[in-house]
């Protein structure tokens, strides 16, 4: 049955891709059919995921049918858990795409539809891979899909650069995984993951480092986060959601999977993950907060979330390194909840914003003023995503962030000083991040979504029925998952069982509707109860106000907002979104490397009166990009130029190189003992 579901899903997607490649994007039915296939396949995958999570583990041996050696597919609860999420997100994003692609001109190339389906299929392959070959096959396919999707609109140099950054860092990720897998396979004499638990010693440590790097690149761990703010915005519309909300989860899946497979990680690695995770979160949210363009802001917020998830994962690693399964349980539970919150919220952010960005023809936050009044459903769902990522109650983001902080508070249970310092530093950075995150999303909602716009005609294209439904699938879980958090944890306990005992994870449920951070008598939270008390409190306050004012609050005299009685000014006269973020450029100037320059563009005579027109240029410097990527890029280009010299194009030179190589080879072979 499961195999049938899998084959059906892949089949539907393949058919969809064929339609797209054959018919092209010029007519709407073909576009809709492609994304409709995405929806159908994803629904099958979701069903497969639920069945797999709740069932027992099964292994499918495919033999060498993929042409990559002995291929193994493993359907266990962990894969099932991620498949469930991927299926749901796939359905929702496909539905959004069906609506979004309706107006002509939005989808202009064949690659979007096929690339999207390739991405879905690659994700499923990675999640189900039971051996290194299959895993890497899926992984490289995913990198290919990302490259295709992020270089669809090669309109200018920046977009071409975005595609290349995605590809290059994807290759770095693949290379790290390949070497790590080869080390493990070499020690265990097998490519099947299940055999790798026996590997010990320095090989294990080296493999751990390589795998963390490999998966870290995918999720955006510092210093490999550079491609996210380039690659995501370069993709089109809701496809970004598929990259940032859906596909990124395979990176987390890899981390989860190998925590269950491999032996204890080295302490230095754990501390590195904790500190790097904290820094990732802070750098991510700081840059998110000052971005003037919405897609880049959302992309940087992905970096931030990766950081928070990795800090929680670091707690689980610390538990694994010191042999404390409860700590693994709380760390992994917190990280998984955060993955869930991020997956839904990030998808709804990208999918929802696609509608108003395309409708308004701009992605500039200062130009997206008042979209909340014109694209009510998209913007409402978008705002729920913002609240979730801001970690505000009553969303699942609040629950997950609570668990992350509770996990970090278990630091006192450890005795290793390095680990304790690592957790403390990570915790402090996460707490700082939470504050900046609130500022960041208040800015988006307050100064763009909800700000009163100048009256403009209502645009024709909203989210449509499919889009509205897709957005609902993405947005409602941000509330719903919090309301039924105990049930979610019950499900997660099943899904995480291959990594850490489900019984331990399930200890997070103190009583049917009250949660605790796995350890007893530490602290409790009941998000479900919040859903009862908050409405009652709101109603009670409203009733009290109404009664105390004897109904006068309902009789309001509306006057224009108070503006200092001025006759008005030319140009914008409200706080801009950019201006609201400027305080961060000052306060966190050291992180941002912010600079401003006032250039006189008027005459020098008028400048002597301080009345010349000036132009203000502000910039922020990404430390990683400036101090790491640029030198490496410069070095690679230099090395390339050096290599060009030996390619003189003369035949005798090439013959000489071959001769030289032959001599060296013979020398090496004969020199072996």
């Amino acid at each position: 049955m499961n195999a049938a579901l899998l084959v059906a899903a892949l089949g539907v997607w393949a058919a969809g891709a064929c339609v797209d490649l054959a018919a092209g994007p010029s007519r709407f039915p073909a576009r809709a059919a492609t994304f409709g296939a995405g929806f159908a396949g994803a629904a099958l995958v979701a069903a497969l995921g639920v069945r797999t999570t709740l069932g027992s583990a099964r292994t499918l041996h495919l033999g060498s049918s993929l042409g990559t050696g002995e291929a193994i597919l493993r359907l266990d609860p962990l894969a099932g858990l991620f498949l469930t999420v991927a299926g749901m997100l796939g359905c929702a994003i496909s539905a959004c795409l069906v609506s979004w692609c309706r107006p002509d001109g939005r989808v202009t190339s064949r690659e979007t539809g096929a690339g999207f389906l390739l991405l879905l299929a690659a994700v499923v392959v990675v999640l189900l891979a039971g051996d290194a070959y299959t895993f890497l096959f899926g992984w490289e396919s995913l990198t290919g899909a990302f490259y295709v999707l992020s270089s669809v609109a090669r309109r200018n140099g920046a977009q071409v650069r975005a595609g290349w950054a995605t590809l290059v860092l994807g290759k770095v990720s693949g290379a790290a995984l390949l070497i790590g897998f080869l080390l493990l396979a070499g020690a265990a004499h097998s490519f099947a993951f299940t055999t790798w638990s026996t590997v010990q010693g320095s090989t294990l440590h080296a493999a751990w480092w390589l795998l963390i790097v490999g998966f870290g690149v995918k999720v955006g761990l510092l210093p490999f986060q550079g491609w996210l703010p380039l690659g995501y915005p370069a993709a089109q519309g809701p496809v970004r959601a598929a990259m940032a909300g859906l596909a990124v989860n395979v990176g987390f899946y890899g981390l989860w999977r190998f925590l269950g497979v491999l032996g204890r990680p080295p302490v230095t690695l754990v501390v590195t993950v904790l500190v790097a995770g904290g820094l990732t979160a802070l750098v991510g949210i700081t840059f998110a907060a000052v971005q003037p363009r919405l897609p880049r802001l959302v992309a940087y917020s992905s970096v931030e979330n990766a950081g928070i998830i990795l800090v929680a994962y670091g707690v689980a690693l610390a538990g694994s390194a010191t042999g404390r399964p409860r700590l693994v349980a709380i760390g992994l539970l917190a990280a998984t909840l955060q993955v869930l919150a991020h997956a839904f919220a990030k998808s709804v952010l990208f999918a929802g914003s696609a509608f108003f960005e395309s409708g308004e023809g701009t992605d500039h936050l200062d130009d997206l003023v008042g979209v909340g009044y014109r694209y009510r459903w998209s913007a409402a769902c978008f705002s729920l995503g913002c609240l979730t990522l801001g970690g505000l109650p009553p969303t699942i983001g609040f629950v997950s962030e609570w668990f992350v902080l509770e996990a970090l508070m278990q630091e006192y249970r450890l005795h290793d000083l390095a680990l304790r310092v690592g957790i403390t530093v990570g915790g402090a950075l996460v707490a700082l991040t939470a504050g900046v995150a609130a500022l960041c999303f208040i800015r988006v909602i307050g100064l763009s979504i909800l700000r009163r716009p100048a009256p403009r005609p209502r645009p024709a294209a909203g989210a449509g029925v499919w889009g509205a439904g897709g957005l609902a699938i993405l947005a409602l879980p941000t509330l719903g998952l919090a309301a039924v958090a105990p049930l979610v944890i019950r499900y997660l306990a099943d899904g995480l069982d291959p990594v850490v005992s489900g019984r331990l994870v399930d200890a997070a449920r103190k009583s049917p509707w009250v949660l605790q951070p796995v350890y007893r008598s530490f602290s409790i939270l009941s998000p479900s109860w919040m859903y009862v008390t908050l409405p009652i409190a709101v109603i009670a306050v409203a009733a009290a106000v109404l009664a105390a004012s004897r109904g006068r609050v309902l009789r309001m005299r509306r006057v224009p907002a108070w503006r200092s009685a001025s006759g008005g000014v030319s140009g914008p006269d409200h706080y801009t979104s950019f201006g609201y973020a400027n305080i961060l450029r000052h306060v966190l100037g050291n992180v941002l490397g912010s600079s401003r320059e006032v250039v006189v563009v008027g005459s020098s005579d008028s400048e002597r009166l301080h009345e010349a027109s000036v132009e203000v240029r502000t910039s922020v410097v990404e430390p990683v990009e400036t101090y790491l990527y640029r030198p490496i890029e410069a070095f690679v280009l230099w090395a390339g130029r050096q290599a060009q010299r030996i390619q003189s194009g003369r035949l005798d030179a090439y013959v000489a190189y071959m001769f030289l190589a032959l001599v060296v080879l013979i020398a090496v072979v004969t020199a072996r003992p």
Partner: protein
Amino acid sequence: MTIQGDRLGEEAIDRSRFAEAVAHLSAGPNRFAGLFPSLRASGGVELRAVVATPGGYTSVVTELPPGDLAYPSVSVGLPAASWYEREIHDRYGIQPKGHPRLDPLVLPLLPEDPHPALGDWHSQVSPDPRALDAHASGEGLFTIPYGPVRSGVFEAVEYLVETFGEDIPRLRSRMYHKHRGIDWRFEDLTPDDGVLLAERVEGTASVAHAIAYCRGLEQLTGTEVPYEAEVVRLVHAELERVANHLDSMIRHSDGSYQAVANARLAVHKERLLRLRATLCGSRFGRNVVVPGGVSGPMRRPPDEARSELLRIAGGVSDDARAMMSTPSFLDRLRGAGVLPADLVAAHGAVGPVARGSGLGEDVRHARPYGAYPSSGFRPTPPHDQGDALARQQVRLAEMDESFRLAADGLAILAGCNEREWRRGPGAAADGTAISSVESPQGELLYVVEADGGRLARVKPRCAAFHNFALFPAAFRGDILTDFVFIEASFGLSIAGVAG
């Protein structure tokens, strides 16, 4: 002692060479002090540039013929002249050719509107609130209109703060809301009524205005003011200075949330105003100074007033010292609103604003008048940091000196028996005179024209007219929260600037 009149040199010159001559004359130790139009019966305008020289004032005059009120702008080489040219452009339609930015200053009129000082003023003009163009552009730039009605009890002025959050790349001000046409109102008043209006040009510096006005008139009529009257004028002028500097301190302490300091300084200021009320009946020293002297003796025995004054002085200097050693206060002022000395010089800034940047003479010292030559007045030592703190230190030192001068003056008055308070005019006022005094905010200039004993034209030029033009330049590197300190440290009187 003798009353030293300001000598008025005068040179008539063709309008094409006017700008050049003014720039030439303002160089070196001289300082550009004003540009004043005067309407001629023919419909032409006589334009007078006044330059302060080490010993007095000299002026250059040019005639603009009717129907062609244009001349090459003075501001190109002399930033200090810019606001004058904007004002005469607003009110007379005079065209300073080549002025870099002829934005409206006191009346934002459209070209087709009649110019009030030329045309029929009964058709009451409505200043057009149409906005000035934004001066700054770039990512996220917007304009905060701050005023004319803003938090707190302030005079009406609108600051257009162009910002992208925190930083202030450009700041402009609109003060036309308050324009009252006050110099027009002087025309045809009697000299005795004129002093009442002078007291209302800048209500917080009534005494300084009354003295400056009367000194101009006394020059024209050749009146010698009795010494005792000069001492009374000095006492009132110095008390006014202390009150203004205290007000500036209060605004600083309010801005930095020093609640106790704020309350205590407010008590000192109120006591000082009450002392002034007991001396003359008015809390602002009004109705004291009249042409030819003062209106009468002090209403309270001078020695009694002196002991009260010394008590207030003790309290003020005690609290001021405590404030200047409160780190949370000093931190807000230090480095805020820095004005480099060359900028101050270029704009001809005066008073504590200029002295905080190590420049700026004190009229009481440079061109001593009234009872000052015999008072032993010592100018405050200059501070050259140029920030809000330096300006405040200048004010504190001036307050000490003013307390001393006023107390000495009261002692002199207590010892005087023979008293003559006012002398009649030697002749009917006729001609043009330029007079100046050191008002609390710096040099105050009056151009008084009289014709047959009545005022033909009176133009007060407040210290703030020069200092305000420098205000936008003080915001390099400062952010929105520094605004309150920079504004308070400038001590701007909007009524005086808007006219």
